[in-house]
């Protein structure tokens, strides 16, 4: 896959294409489908060649709609909260964007508590908005406040890797001890396990496997775990 830099223009034969993160459509009068790159990385496409995205690693999160993120509540604001998601701006989370929330029965989040939420609005000129439920079904589907456990910070690439069901790390950790995780695409991973030691092991493995940190592969991680006190 070719390495692309911001500003490069890419043209395709396909008439209808879908653009993922790091690409933006540009209008041109010659009726050609063209897009410009907004992020450095490798250009990836699906087998059919009608979906494109830029894969890369970074540490600063830029929200995109529908992505799960972990935020830290930084302040109360009217009916909702201001949440830090690692972006340049704070996101807003409405008090009614929870399962079963109504005007009378609203969840009570304290400042500095953790929430697992989905980005419902991401626009480059507007403040991002979060929601803790599925807007169609109004069910929580795992979103909401995260209590206990520990928050691990990693690179954005690592957090995307962890979301991939074929990635080795979480099944490997799960075979050693039971653990709960909440994966945010904003480089934050919440882990909960019974013992403090187990959480520390999980956090150190994520750090060691992070392409931005240790960059270990499956065998190296296996060896690494066996050296740890569990």
């Amino acid at each position, binding site marked *: 896959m070719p390495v692309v830099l911001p500003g490069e223009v890419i043209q395709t034969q396909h008439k209808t294409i879908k653009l993922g993160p790091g690409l933006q459509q540009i209008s041109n009068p010659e009726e050609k489908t063209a897009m410009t790159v907004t992020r450095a990385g490798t250009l990836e496409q699906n087998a059919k060649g009608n979906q494109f995205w830029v894969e890369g690693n970074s540490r*600063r999160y830029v929200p995109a709609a529908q992505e799960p993120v972990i935020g830290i509540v930084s302040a109360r604001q009217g009916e909702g909260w201001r949440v830090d998601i690692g972006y340049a701006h704070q996101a807003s989370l409405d008090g009614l964007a929870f399962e079963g929330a109504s005007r009378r029965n609203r969840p009570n989040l304290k400042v500095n508590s953790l929430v697992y939420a989905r980005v419902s609005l991401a626009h480059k000129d507007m403040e991002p908005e979060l929601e803790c439920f599925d807007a169609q079904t109004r069910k929580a589907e795992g979103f909401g406040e995260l209590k206990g456990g520990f928050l691990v910070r990693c690179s954005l690439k690592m957090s995307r890797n962890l979301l991939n069901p074929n990635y080795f790390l979480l099944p490997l950790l799960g075979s050693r001890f039971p653990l709960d995780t909440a994966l945010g695409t904003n480089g934050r991973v919440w882990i909960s396990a019974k013992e403090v030691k187990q959480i520390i092991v999980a956090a150190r493995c994520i750090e060691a496997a992070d392409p931005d940190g240790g960059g270990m592969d499956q065998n190296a991680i296996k060896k690494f775990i066996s050296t740890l006190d569990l």
Partner: protein
Amino acid sequence: MRPPSPSIPEKDFFFSALDQALRLDGRDFLEARPHSLSFGAELGHVECSLGKTRVLAQVDAKMVRPEPQRPFEGLISIHCELSPMASTEYEPGRQSDEEIALARMLDKIFRRSDTIDREALCILAGERVWHLRIAIHALADAGGLLDCASLACAAALRHFRRPDVEVVGANEVIVHPPALRAPVPLALHHTPYCITFACYRAAPEPSAAAAKGAGAGTVAGQTETAPRVLLDPAGLEHRLAQGMLHLALTPQRELAVVHKAGGLPLAPGVLMGAVQVAARRARELEAWLDVRVREDWVRKKVEVR
């Protein structure tokens, strides 16, 4: 924007781990993160890393007229820069409090402790002296920035060599290019190393935690009710510290700076224990730095004999 404070689960987990005498990165209480140095093409250009914290230090010298009240002394200035590159917590533009604190500490450690012989920087009394400019750039901040910056600064001062100069007659100065005459190292009186400790209140139930931590991993003089002291705090440890202690000292156990601005009170015994630990670490760093700087000097082949 103010940096977001650690979330409630992070804070709770950190203290429950501390109660079990565990650190988040698996280190012992008195174990520092691994450090490394890499040297640039120029003399005096050093990049130092301490764990994930990275600092670039660069020393350069130029000739200036000395201050009229001190005609025999060279000038030294230390500049720090904390840009958003280091961490998302720093903003561009206005100097932040952290930046000022870092610059002042480095000034105390290297300038006010008389590390550099200023009179050796004099070329022609009242006319020409060397002005040493030390630039510190934080490349990544994962806690312990001051320790890393001071180590980078010490390494840069050791690594740097100024061009050889010759005074001919009354006021003619000849600067010899490095190809003709080997550049001269700086005259350093001593090299201070800054070592940071984070202090936390004693465990609520001292029995379990203290029994575990009472082995080799604690500062001497630390009893069950004494505060817990961690060497080289990183990230969360730094943010959640209830008191910080910065010690700058030479391998010969001469204290240059003791900086304990508020926070948890420390008993004299604990403080002395921390000084002992710091002295040991300063000796290790000195030996390591010596070897690394000499290696690079040999590799560069500036001097041909």
